Each structure stands twice: as structure tokens, then as C-alpha cells.
């Protein structure tokens, strides 16, 4: 079914906000966790989580990670992804990341990061419900 022009623009606006929110969240996670375990181990964990979540949500492959940090390439390609898919994809990625954190250090990392993640996830759900 074809989507009307104004509807497409509205959805794109939601996607952009979600994208912005999740990228900021990943950067915050990076900042906190890299101070705990160092950039080289963290970039490895990010790559593993992206690879795993990317099996289901291919658009996550646009995320690039090095020891310098995390960023996204080819932003324009997100235009084809629906806001709820973006939301689910990033949620999956964060879940995988937290699974790795827990497997390695039980609750030590999660305790430090969770206070930052929880409000952002709530905000993402709010953005999504407004669409």
C-alpha cells in the first residue's frame, strides 16, 4: 500500500528522532563503559553485539565501531526503515550488549550503565507512541 507524501515525511521525522536518541545513548554507553574496561575490549563487544543483532536487523550494519568510538555511515539508508523497526533493532542491540556485559562482569557494568539506558528507552517508546 502506497504511503502518502505527508505521512512518509512524518514517519521520517520520527525515525530521525529515534535514531538521534539511540545514537546518543550508544555514545553515552561508550563513554561510561570505556572508562571501565578500555576502548579495545569495548569495541570488540560492540562489534559482537552489532553482528548478532544485525542478523535480524540488517540496517545495524551501518554502525561502525573502532577504538575511537561508534558512529553511523550512510544515514540516508535509514529512510527505508520504519520507526518501529529502528526501535526494535536498537533495543535488540542494547540487549545483546548487556548480555555480554553480564556474561563478563555480572552486574558490575550493568549497574553503572543502566541508569542512563532506562530513561532513554522510555523516551524512545514515547516518541514511537506519538507517531
Amino acid at each position: 500500500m502506497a504511503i502518502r507524501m505527508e505521512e512518509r515525511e512524518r514517519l521520517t521525522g520520527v525515525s530521525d528522532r529515534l535514531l538521534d536518541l539511540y545514537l546518543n545513548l550508544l555514545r553515552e554507553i561508550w563513554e561510561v563503559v570505556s572508562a571501565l574496561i578500555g576502548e579495545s575490549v569495548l569495541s570488540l563487544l560492540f562489534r559482537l553485539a552489532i553482528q548478532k543483532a544485525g542478523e535480524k536487523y540488517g540496517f545495524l550494519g551501518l554502525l561502525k565501531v573502532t577504538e575511537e568510538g561508534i558512529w553511523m555511515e550512510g544515514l540516508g539508508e535509514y529512510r527505508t526503515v520504519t520507526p518501529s523497526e529502528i526501535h526494535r533493532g536498537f533495543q535488540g542491540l542494547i540487549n545483546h550488549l548487556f548480555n555480554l556485559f553480564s556474561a563478563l562482569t555480572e552486574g558490575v557494568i550493568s549497574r553503572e550503565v543502566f541508569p542512563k539506558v532506562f530513561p532513554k528507552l522510555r523516551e524512545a517508546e514515547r516518541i514511537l507512541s506519538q507517531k
Partner: protein
Amino acid sequence: MRFIFKNLNLLRSTLNAINMSFEIKEIVESAGTHLPNLFEFSAFGLLWKETATLYLYQEESCPPSFTQEVAQNMVRVFSLLGEEPNDLNQVTLQVEKRRLRPDHMKMDPKATLKSYLTLPLTIEEEILGCVSLNSDQSNAFDAEDLQFFSVIGHQMAATLKHFQRFSSIKTIAIYDPLTNLYNRRYFEERLTGEAQRAFYGGSSLSLIMIDIDHFKKINDTFGHTEGDKVLQEIATLLKSSVRKKDTVARYGGEEFVIILPEAGLEEANMIAERIRKLVETTLLTIGKVQMNITISLGISNFPIHRPKSKEELVRMADHALYEAKRAGRNRVCIFRES
């Protein structure tokens, strides 16, 4: 503030100790010695992927069930990183027990793993293994422990990577690529050490020089590829016939040499004769033909032949080899003053 400085100093000395290590066991020992100053733990583990070995440095009262649990957990976490070994059966366990706690804090025989910190040893995007701190106490580690442990893990990864590079360079430098025996350079180096030990310590030292009989004919008849195979087969036979402390090297071309520390003339002669017979009776496949090859051997010995230097010891063995050739090949000759 004083507490932080104290910890930083302890961290610095731990990193120095790791950095000064020359082999993986030393890293584990250094870490095991220094880590109790920084953390309270029951077992420290290092899983080295290259050799699938798990080194555990643990409190002496650790019950075997706890050791097993720690090992299993480390392998499990490592496999979550998509790495092998992913099964404890594939891992060689090396356990060092040390007294890490006072008597009144000895571990319960039924103690179980309650908390741990595990970090991958990663450098230049390569995972070399993982390290782990383990405790039988709940919530034994906090964020500050993790920060300290990650710095230590990073240093270990860098040192292990250095070992890896060094060991591949060492392999190139000391082995003959065709036969996998030590090369001549390594032989010279080893002989210097053994000669010094014998000349100044008064122990025996024997040398056997070996040459494949009619090797040129083999090369001319069957080609160099088959000739190379013969060299490899002979090298394998030599390696299988000597004692653990002996050094077998390719001296050059079709010549080999064996250093036999603490071997008297009689023992050296017995080993040489055993090698000669083994080669003579082993049927080798050369091209499409099966045939027997023979070798000639020359022996020299300190102190019986009274060499004044290692070079003279080599010359004497070479001279004896020449005598064996002259006397009709396929025999062992002991050096004699002419």
C-alpha cells in the same frame, strides 16, 4: 586520596612485573603474586587461546569443585565471545596453588563461584584469550576493581602479543625450514653453551656428525624434490633416536650434527650405532622405488679427545666422519689422533 595513590603504586608494580615476564607462566606467576595486593579473590585465571591452556592461580584451600566451576565458567564466557576453545575438554588445565588468605579465612570445602570479572585479552582486534578474577564471596568486585583489572588485562594482552611475535621470529631464526631441525646458527649457539658447561664444569660432551651416503646420486637420479623428502625422513629418524637433552641440527646440505651433553664416548657410540642401524633398516620410498639408505657417522668427545675449543670438537667429529666415509661408509668412527 592516599588510598588511590597506594592502589596506583600497586598497579604500577603489577604492570611492571607483567611487562618483565619472558613467558606466559611467568605472567601468571607475576599476576598471581601481585594481584592479591589489589583484589580479594579466590582464583585468577588466564586462558591462552593459542595453546588452549587455562592457567589457574588460586588460593591453596580452593576445593576441586570450585576449580572446576571457575574453569567451566571461563570457557563458557570465552565461547560467548565467539571463540574457541568452547569446551572444557579441549582445554589443558594448569593449576598453581598459593596461600592467598590467612588461616581463619580458608575456603569452605563446599565453596561455589559467587562472583567473577572476566575480560577478553584483545589487541589490534585480535582475541588472544581471556583473564578472570573469581571469588567465593557474593559481590566481591566493584567498578573500581574492574577499572584496575582492565588495565592489568590490557598490559597482559600487549605482553602476550609481544611473546607471539617474538616466538614466530625465534622459530624463523633457529629452525631449518625443510627438516624442522635446528639450523646451524642455533647449533653454534647451543654448542657454545654446552662446551662452556663441559669445559669449565668438567662434565662430558660428545658430538656426532652425520652424512647421508651417496646423497648426490639420489638427487641426480630422482630429483631434488625426492632428495628433500629423504632429508626430511632422515631428520625424523634422528629426532626419534636421541635423548631429550640432545640437540639435533642440520649442519648443511646432507650433513647433520648432534650435541650430546653429559654423554661419554661409550654412550655416544651406542647412540650413533643405534641411529646407523635404524636408518639402514628403514625402507624409504623415493619416487616410486622403495630403498634403504645408509649414513656415516663421526664422533668426538670432551674430555677424552682433549679439544681446546668447541671448534676443535667439531673438527674432530668431522675428521672421524671423513674416516667413516673413507673406510667404506655406513659405519660409525670415533676420532683418533692421526
